[in-house]
């Protein structure tokens, strides 16, 4: 059994490349679109902020798997009639990215709302314009607050990227390679345990890195309540 597990591990590892690429591209789309949604919510006149909030609620309120299917099979087949083909990887990146944008917009919103009113008052009293207040006072503090949640979002993306395997991925990701291995050798437990192991190592490493980054950018003198 151990031998089967180790063999499965060796077979599945190359899938890391696709998994990481999926998560990284999706995170980047989410970051870009999420920031955009945030700016719309904070700076633009109604009804635009409501539309941004609607976007967030729709993507939070529907299952990721359904979103992946809508993008790949739904929109994908529609585009096919116009001669545009989207492969599963692209569809996966888009679906994960659109979904992550909703969550990242929420992360930014709550990070900004966590900044005390006093900071705005100080900025106003010293005649900063709204854009200056945002850039020099609110954003630098909000990013620090958002950092743990953003890193967590990246971890979630790495794990959720396994859902894309359902629509068939090439080159295969961690989960799809595990699937191949399991089906060809009939060693389901070993194969999926190998996949789980690799996801865990990836995610654990990311959490460790995120702790280092958080400490590096922590506001000096700021005492965290309850040492964790």
């Amino acid at each position, binding site marked *: 059994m151990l031998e089967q597990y180790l063999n499965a591990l060796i077979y599945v590892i190359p899938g890391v490349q696709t998994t990481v690429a999926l998560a990284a591209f999706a995170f980047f789309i989410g970051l870009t679109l999420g920031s955009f949604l945030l700016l719309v919510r904070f700076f633009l006149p109604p009804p635009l902020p409501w539309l941004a909030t609607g976007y967030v609620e729709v993507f939070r309120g529907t299952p990721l798997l359904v979103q992946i299917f809508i993008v790949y099979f739904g929109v994908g087949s529609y585009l096919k009639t116009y001669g545009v083909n989207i492969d599963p990887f692209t569809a996966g990146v888009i679906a994960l990215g659109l979904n992550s944008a909703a969550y990242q917009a929420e992360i930014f919103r709550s990070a900004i709302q966590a900044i005390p009113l006093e900071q705005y008052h100080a900025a106003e*009293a010293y*005649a*900063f314009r709204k854009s200056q207040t945002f850039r*020099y006072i609110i954003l630098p503090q909000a990013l620090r607050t958002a950092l743990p949640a953003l890193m967590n979002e990246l971890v979630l993306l790495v794990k959720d990227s396994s859902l894309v395997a359902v629509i068939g991925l090439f080159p295969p990701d961690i989960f799809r390679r595990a699937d191949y291995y399991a089906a060809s050798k009939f060693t389901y437990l070993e194969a999926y345990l190998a996949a789980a192991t690799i996801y865990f190592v990836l995610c654990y490493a990311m959490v460790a890195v995120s702790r280092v980054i958080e400490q590096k950018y922590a*506001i000096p*003198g700021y*005492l965290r309540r309850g040492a964790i």
Partner: protein
Amino acid sequence: MTLAVRGLEVAYGSLEVVRGVDLDVERGEKVVIMGPSGSGKSTFLKSLIWLVKPRRGSVIIDGVEVREDTILQVRRRVGFVFQHYNLFPHMRVVDNITLPLVKVHKLSKAEALSRAREALELVGLWDKATAYPLQLSGGQQQRVAIARALAIRPAVLMLDEPTSALDPELVEEVLDTLREVARGGTTMLIVTHELDFARDVADRVVFFDGGKILEEGPTRDVLENPKTERLRQFLKRIHKYGS
């Protein structure tokens, strides 16, 4: 006249907090505002530069009437010190002071730095220039906040209960700093309950009650011979619980 307020009214929704206040402050004058909690003195001070927007009335600061199109200009002439210091925690002490100078007052970095140094030396904290606000004691943070306000060379320095959030043993260092500032001739408008301090620096005391000025006059007159029963009781109470 550095400050002229006429018929100022401020309300939070249907709650009227400031109900028709007139006040003049001459250049170089130090005016202390006192009053029971909830009397509207803090809101009054904030409303002068529209941190809370007044509902009615006019405010002229350093010759400029506060309006939508002049508010930034007016704020550039006012130094404001908050009860909870409101320093920017993600910036070093020195950057807290130079940021408004560079971004709002358009000074060069070198000029801003020399002003920051001057201000920090006045409050005795130049040696903390590269520290971060949360690494300092409350008293030190408030002195930095005072330096930040002075560095813009304000026409009027407004202080909203600058010692109320401090531990008792830190109050004196801030008051001493303010006494030092007062000697420099800056026009000051101070909300405080520190009677000894008021006696030392204030030319005039204004007593707020129920959103209005109940009594005002030269410091000694107001503190030694209060005309109203309300002020008499108020002074008795803060004597009893104060230092």
